């Protein structure tokens, strides 16, 4: 008996040929090669459209600003722990898994972008004053993209802002909404915006959906994981594989014997 027929699963991504290949509607060798950049390919891969040079340069700026990569940052340390056995790719892959949430990294830019879209709709329905924003804010208990651990301002956003101003990105609608929201969030909750909500606004203003914004933001930050996976795999540091004796406090159940051992 043959296999039950299955409807083909559609893909917009790619088709392999013999002498050329298709990638999101373009010839890989005749239209993309020599014209696209890495950030442009990331945006194309998620959003399905090619960016103009100004947009690509903005994403390049964002990727550089995001490259805060201290090895003690939790997901990066996780990467190094797994890579310490010598596997760059295994370390890299493990480091990605903890980013699948709304707490850390750039994936939460999708949540922040969805909030900005919701705020934008609320402002269109009601008004555009800070009071309207404050009313919308009351519907949100935790607001992704606000709050900066251990410091007053997000230095990544502050460093990026002049570059965005020079490129005209800070006059765009979602960026303007984000700035309005930031004023209100600071007044109401004492929190400042971080790079996550800034990335969300930038990507929305480029026409990406919230889901695409999260994915593009995430991919623009993978270089820091590659850096740590590669270095740690080469080092194979014994102290990463096993912490030194005496550096662990056991706080679980005290020693005991099972009923069958007695």
């Amino acid at each position, binding site marked *: 008996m043959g296999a039950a027929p*299955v409807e083909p699963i*559609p893909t*917009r991504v790619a088709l392999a040929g013999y002498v050329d290949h298709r990638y999101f509607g373009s010839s890989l060798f005749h239209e993309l090669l020599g014209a696209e950049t890495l950030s442009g390919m990331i945006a194309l891969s998620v959003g399905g459209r090619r960016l103009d040079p100004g947009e690509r340069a903005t994403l390049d700026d964002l990727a550089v600003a995001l490259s805060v990569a201290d090895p003690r940052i939790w997901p990066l340390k996780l990467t190094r722990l797994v890579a310490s056995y010598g596997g760059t790719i295994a370390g890299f*892959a493990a480091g990605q898994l903890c980013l699948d949430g709304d707490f850390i990294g750039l994936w939460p830019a999708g949540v922040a972008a969805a909030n900005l879209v919701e705020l934008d709709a609320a402002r269109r329905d009601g008004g555009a004053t800070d009071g309207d924003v404050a009313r919308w804010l009351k519907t949100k208990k935790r607001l992704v993209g606000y709050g900066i651990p251990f410091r007053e301002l997000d230095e990544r956003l502050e460093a990026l802002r002049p570059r965005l101003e020079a490129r005209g990105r800070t006059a765009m609608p979602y960026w303007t909404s984000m700035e309005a929201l930031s004023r209100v969030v600071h007044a109401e909750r004492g929190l400042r915006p971080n790079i996550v909500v800034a990335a969300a606004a930038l990507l929305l203003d480029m026409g990406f959906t919230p889901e695409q914004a999260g994915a593009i933001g995430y991919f623009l930050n993978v270089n820091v994981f590659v850096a740590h996976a590669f270095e740690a795999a080469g080092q194979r540091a014994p102290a990463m594989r096993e*912490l030194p004796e005496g550096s662990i406090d056991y706080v679980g159940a005290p020693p005991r014997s099972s009923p069958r051992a007695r």
Partner: protein
Amino acid sequence: MSEPAPGPFDELAWPERLAARVVTPGARPRVHGYDVEGDLARAYRFTDLVLLSLTGELPSDEASRAFDVAMQFLAPTSIAHAPVHAGALARICNGSPGAVAATCAVGLAEMARAAVERHRSWIAWLDGRRGPAPRDADPEDRASVDALRAAVAPSGLAVPALDAAASRDRAIFAVLHACGLAGEEKILAAVVTAKVPLAIAESLATPAGSFKVYPARLPPIAYEE
């Protein structure tokens, strides 16, 4: 040229030591206080160790037997399913055995996460048992549920929620819950633990580098512009 400057990881106060809560570090490991090598390994099954690790206590004889049954019901995942299919592809790509195992583990964790999400209201109902059982998200599988009931019966463990379970996953989750695994996290952990060995075995049985005998067009994927 700028100079490196200290930051929060250098200047703020951070704990100096890591906490262990289940397994003691060093030689002669203990799990929740029990000596593995001198006690548990001599008198208990591996599934008892798994249940101990997740609940913090050694199971009763009834829960021990019922949990072993549930884990065996959970264990098989065929190559028709994405985690094992992916593991086999990792093997075909000549990935290392470690890469094959990791691929299976990640896929199985995703599969388990989806199952737990699908049965979220059921797990919540098992935890609280208030009101009627929620509607089942999965198709009925009376034969499998009856087989599970028959396999669990000799353990003597009471699993009253089995009467409200018509699908296979629901029934297995009911047994896991009756064994002491409350909440989504512990059920997910048990599901992944049960499924990993057979998924790796099936994947490693696939010949490495066997690109030409792999059905590249199964299932079909069509490019659209």
